[in-house]
């Protein structure tokens, strides 16, 4: 009898195990690999678990780390990539697009959005950001976080000194003189990473001086584009501000945290940066410090739109479906689900970040980010750089970076700076091996 019971229980166990294995086998597993930075990957896991509830036959394995591209690169080369990935800032998205490594998303983008079935998926996402990775008629990258760029300051410090937020260049210069009297530097920058100075001083001023078409000419590699008046005026303005002592002494040698710390310590009043600033400096910002963003002041004699605004997707957590994914259809569907309005609001509230899904900004809790969204929402012209020109033509970008550094340290004149950039653009124009883009 005992033996029979033992036998039966073994049979029972095997049946149960076998059935569960069979059940597991009938589930399709997709692999999701993500860059793990400031926002973590717990939110992806949470959305994945929700998706699994909606689709019981799908299992989503999520993994990630801060240098995920190092693991993904060999897998792309070997033709064995995950089904969905956010390969991070160390991954060259454009090289992968040229090499046909990403799955075109347009068919999926035409499908209805999750939760807003009356709209196409593409209509729910910020167009400027979606279009950043547009190549030969197709879209390849879905943005997850938005970076808004402008000038940041401490509202409490400004209020205490009765300084008013300037709107025009003239107003800023008048304010700068007042700020200088308090032994505070009006401006500082993350000089060791000169792209910050491009993003927040030179390029926005140039677009406001010369207009978006001038900027487009440069983006489209039109001969002589960088020597146009708007660029020259912007470079001259930066030069003038250095000479007048508006830029903090020594900022060329500072890294991002050092220079940002200068604003927190009230040794500098304003710093150009992206909307991640508040989160990045959270641990060292005193409670009474109020980060706020203002738009880059516009010159009254400028030809460009005064509200022209620079934004980019935070490439570190942008999503792609590899063209060699094993289950692209599930990966695409999950991606569409991940960017539903409901999920976007959840991510935005949970991570305190701006998500490029229209309508999700209502979930923002941070006053600093709300101030950035307020400036953005007034903008009539939106332009991009770090996901486009900066990575389309890295050598021209490098000429701009080293040039602005040299300008900030007064090694070259504004004219020499633009000569240098134009020369590099000429080289790129002539190099037929570099793929050319239209902006």
């Amino acid at each position, binding site marked *: 009898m005992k033996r029979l019971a033992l036998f039966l229980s073994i049979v029972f166990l095997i049946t149960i195990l076998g059935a569960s294995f069979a059940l597991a086998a009938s589930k399709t597993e997709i692999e999701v690999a993500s860059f793990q930075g400031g926002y973590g990957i717990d939110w992806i896991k949470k959305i994945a678990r929700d998706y699994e509830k909606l689709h019981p036959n799908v299992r989503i394995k999520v993994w990630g780390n801060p240098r995920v591209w190092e693991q993904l690169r060999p897998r792309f080369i070997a033709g064995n990539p995950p089904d969905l990935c956010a390969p991070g800032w160390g991954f060259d998205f454009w090289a992968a697009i040229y090499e*046909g490594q990403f799955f075109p998303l347009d068919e999926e983008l035409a499908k209805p959005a999750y939760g807003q079935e009356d709209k196409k998926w593409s209509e729910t996402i910020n167009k400027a950001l979606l279009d950043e990775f547009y190549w030969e008629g197709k879209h390849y990258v879905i943005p997850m976080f938005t970076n808004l760029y402008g000038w940041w300051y401490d509202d409490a410090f400004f209020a205490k000194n009765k300084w008013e937020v300037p709107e025009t260049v003239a107003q800023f210069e008048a304010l700068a003189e007042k700020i200088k009297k308090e032994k505070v530097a009006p401006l500082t920058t993350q000089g060791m990473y000169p792209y910050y100075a491009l993003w927040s001083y030179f390029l926005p001023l140039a677009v406001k001086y010369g207009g978006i078409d001038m900027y487009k000419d440069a983006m489209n590699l039109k001969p002589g584009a960088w020597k146009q008046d708007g660029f020259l005026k912007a470079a001259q303005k930066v030069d003038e501000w250095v000479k007048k002592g508006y830029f903090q002494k020594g900022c060329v040698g500072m890294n991002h945290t050092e220079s940002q710390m200068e604003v927190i310590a009230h040794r500098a009043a304003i710093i150009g940066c992206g909307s991640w600033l508040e989160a990045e400096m959270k641990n060292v910002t005193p409670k009474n410090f109020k980060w706020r963003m203002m738009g880059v002041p516009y010159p009254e004699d400028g030809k460009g739109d005064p509200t022209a605004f620079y934004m980019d997707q935070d490439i570190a957590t942008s999503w792609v479906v590899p063209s060699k994914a094993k289950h692209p259809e599930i990966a695409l569907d999950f991606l569409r689900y991940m960017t539903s309005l409901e999920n976007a609001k959840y991510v935005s509230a949970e991570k305190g970040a701006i998500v490029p899904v229209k309508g999700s900004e209502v979930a923002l809790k941070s006053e600093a980010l709300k101030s950035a969204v307020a400036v953005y929402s007034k903008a009539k012209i939106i332009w991009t750089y770090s996901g486009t020109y900066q990575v389309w033509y890295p050598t021209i970008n490098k000429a701009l970076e080293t*040039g602005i550094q040299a300008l900030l340290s007064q*090694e070259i004149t504004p004219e020499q700076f633009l000569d240098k950039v134009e020369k590099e653009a000429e080289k790129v124009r002539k190099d037929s091996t570099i793929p050319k883009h239209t902006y």
Partner: protein
Amino acid sequence: MYNKKERKRLIILFLTPALFFYLLFVIYPMASSFYYFLFKWRGVSANKTFVGFANLKEALHDEVVWQSLGHNFYFVIGLIIIVLSFSLFFAFNIFRPIKWANLYKTVFFFPNVLSLVLVAIIWSFVYNPSFGILNSFLRMVGLEGWIRTWLGEKGTVLPSITIAASWNMMGFYIILFLAGIKRIPRSFFEAALIDGASNIRVFFSIIMPLLWEIFKVALVYLIIAGLNMFPYVQLMTRGGPNRHSEVLATYIYEQAFTNSRFGYATSIGIILLVVVLGLTGLLFKIMSRETIEY
């Protein structure tokens, strides 16, 4: 007792695993660079286009390559002068029966065990133009005119990095020389002492000749370190300002991982390899002396 053949077999047996990994992780990647530099390769797929020697030709005409190589030589010379002179001086002085010799050994060796990232951060703080201790010190003693953006100015960026790297490396060389000096039989020093030789005389007539082999090894290490410098430069200045501290290794990194030009980056790597081999070969040739047996 083993006979010679058995001994040889045993040696081979023990060497094989290490040799296997050395071949796999050092020799194979190095050898494969002699293959990749012939291609235009973006490094994200298996597609490669054969371009022959075009990459190498371009690299030889790239002014940034030469500028970076110049900075590398600056570091080589700077490190040799600072690290060798100071570490020999300290090693000789710690060797003599002075008070707290062990404490000094620990203190001098300490920077060497710090991680490179930490060293770079510490020195970035020292050089910080706004609150760094260097500028604060200068301000305190009334030398305001000497205040600089140490890592942000053309004239000061290379010396500043050299000093930081020297501080980090010194401990290793002190210990290396100290071990060398300790190997010299005491009787030599005693004889010199009886003959009334001064410390300087002892240093140049006994220590230096007997330390020659170690000195040579130290030079080779320093040359290789000066021709690399990647961690210090990448962490402290990223080659800036305006490429004034760019070295070949950071430029290779930029070409490969920012510009996705792996073939081109590899060809610059080959130039670096040739320079390292050439320089160390030359050094051994110049410095070859008969080894003194004692």
